């Protein structure tokens, strides 16, 4: 399990691999928040969940927490690569719907 965070222009890309649980969730929070606070110009966070096979409530909490943080700066959060049960879990928690709205806005 790992969290890789890359800054590209005003976008921060977090790539998560493995299970998104309490441990990975804390790591995601630490890594993303540190970089997000470091660069004031950042206005978009992309969470790449293509290599995530499982997520629990703590993992979902860490994603919602990042959404909250990004929104406080009027930024955007995009989730990419979610599939299978992870996608279902995100859907149940209403996170995909929030991000889908973001995607729509982005499309506009």
């Amino acid at each position, binding site marked *: 399990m790992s969290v890789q965070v890359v800054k590209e222009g005003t976008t921060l890309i977090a790539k998560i691999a493995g299970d998104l649980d309490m441990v990975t969730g804390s790591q995601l929070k630490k890594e993303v928040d540190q970089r997000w606070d470091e660069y*004031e110009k950042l206005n978009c966070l992309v969470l790449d969940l293509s290599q995530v096979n499982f997520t629990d409530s*703590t993992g979902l*909490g860490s994603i919602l927490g990042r959404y909250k943080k990004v929104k406080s700066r009027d930024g955007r959060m995009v989730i990419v690569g979610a599939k299978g049960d992870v996608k279902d879990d995100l859907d149940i928690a209403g996170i995909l719907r929030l991000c889908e709205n973001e995607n729509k806005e982005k499309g506009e």
Partner: protein
Amino acid sequence: METTESILYGSSRTKSRRGRRMDHVVLTPERLLDILKHIIACLTWLTIGLFTTKGLWEGTWGLIPLVLACTLGSNKDLIRARSLMIGGLLGLAHLTVSIYTCMTWLMIWLTMEVIVSIGKIQNRKVVIILASLLYPCLLLIGRRLAFPVITYISYSILSSSTLSLFIVGSEILLEKDRVWKPDECLVLLAASGLLVAGIFDNLILGVSISRVFLWLLVLSVGLLGGPVWGIMAGCVACLITSSHYYGYFYLLGGALSGVLVIVKGSNLLIIVVGVILLLMGGQFSVFGLEMILATLLLPVILKKAQIFKYSIPSAVPLERSEIKALELRERIDGFANTLAELSKVFSGLPVKETDIEKRKLADLIESIASKSCQNCLHQQLCWRESFILTYGNLSELLLDLETKTSTETMISKANRWCIRPRELVETVIYLWERKGQDLVWQKRLAESKNVVANQLSGLAAVVGDLGCQLDILERDQRSADIIASELKRKNIMVESLECSRFEHGLAVCLTVKRRNNSCLENEVRNIVSRATGTNMIVERHTCREEACDIYLVPKYLYEVDIFVKRKPATGYTLCGDSFGLASLLRGRQLISLSDGMGVGPEAALQSNTVVTFIEKFLSLNVCSKEALKLVNSVCFLSAERESFATVDLALIDKYTGELSICKLGSAPTFVKRGKRVVSLSSEAIPVGMLSTLNVIERKCFLYQGDLIVMVSDGVLIEGHKVTSDSNWLEKHLERNFGSPQELGESILAMLPDDNKDDITVLITQIKLA
């Protein structure tokens, strides 16, 4: 029933073969008082008989003595019945001075004795037929007239219908513990009017006794039943007297007495009117005197007639408590509106974000000029002589900043027109970021304002709901009085009693004194059920040292059978899931399940807070949507760190079987009917994450045997690991199961022993009560 004889002789009287013999006569003062009371009662009935024969002679309403005598006789009160007949005989003899009339009366008396001895008044057809035959005979013999057949038939019809009226009236009167129907009230009014009109109408000092009694009837009905019934009584009096001269006064008197119910000292007012009429002289003075006499007698009649007060239907002026309830509702509505306005003020406060957008450039340039160029040698040149050029260059620099141009590029660009390019660019970047920080804080402030606005809006909705509840829970003072009198009759001391109507019937909230240190719950329930004619159940019951609080509602149509089991994640002793089961007032069953973020104590605290607050808000009759919004606000404001909890909220109406479900970020809920399973998924984010929440409430009707299956996400995840099928639970539910317990155990049996996440299975089955 204790007869006069038994009272006279007491229990010490014994019977010998030779007949009745008085062995030990003990005449105590109490017994003497009883004897005196009975003598007075007999004399009263004798007087009634004496007076009412006048009516008998002049109209069909005179059949009262026969009905009254039969009624008394059927109650085995022969002493009074015979007193009445003696009175009637004397009255008739005095009035007609005819041996034939008296003989006919004796024949009626004999009829009464026969009726009483063979089968009583219950056989009303016999009495009516006899009356319709006897009454014309009485007139025929008494007046020695030869009737044509048609007259005889007319009198027969009149006598039988009048008698029917009296019999029905007497039966209604015996049922004093229920609310009469309006037509029953009219029957009673007509019967009472005829009774009063039948009274011996000799003038005493110029005053008509029957008119005094008519006044009494009109005033007492008005005071007991309100203006509408007062006017009705006035109409009856008007018809009976057949005089427009007095008719207007009766109508006016009935209306006035009804209106004056709420005014203390209304009797005094009527006396004043009477005195004025008295002073007017002529016919008015007699009428005024009759009014005064009737008003003076009124308290005695009212005291006796109070038991009928709550049997008279509607048209009663508002009780003071109801007026207070209306005032309270108005105040609550006002309070709710104020809160809503306050909410609008908060949400409508100007957010400076837009202002910043508009003024950002100008402000920034001004700040840069004052900070960076203040001590520059070229300030005069740049800002006075080449103002437009400098302003344009700085605007371009800010545009570069927005398009994320690197610092070095910006410096090289500024180098073309500024003597201190690095210092300028650093200042520009610093001020730009500071403005950005301001923007973040202003956004946070705006968000807080939104939270407060939402809180106020939620509170306004809650308070508004409370105001509406006063409408739904309409007070029912009449039922309260009937129940109170019934409880009093059974020697149950009532400290407080309130009845209110809700959509499924009557709710009774009462506090009763304990008897011999034992609770009277069952006894009270039976009495209230009997008094209201509804099968009532005890919904709330609290026993205190001296009294018990009992809340009764009509019996539910459905009841619920619930199975719940939870298991903490392996390695933890505390389960992070919490559930709430509560039987709310007026037949609502609350079932809630919350999954706190993560596992262990923190998750348990979070989920438990959610479940507790939901129950608290719903107990206060707040609707599900508003309750969840308030819970979200509480969690959002109280959470120092990121945390959330999912919510599954189901409310079942046990009177109708209506199920309403709200889901916030929770695992699907399944509704199973036979082999058919419907899955309900969440459509909103969990509580505690964002300041606003969009709650969707779904409703459906459940039938006997339907199952609602709620699970935490741990169940689905752990089951998926075993079955490798994401729809395993839905497929499993399609099988047949006998009870919620059997189904619950079968689900748990499919899960592995070492579960990473908390597991909760909550199954509810609805069945007929």
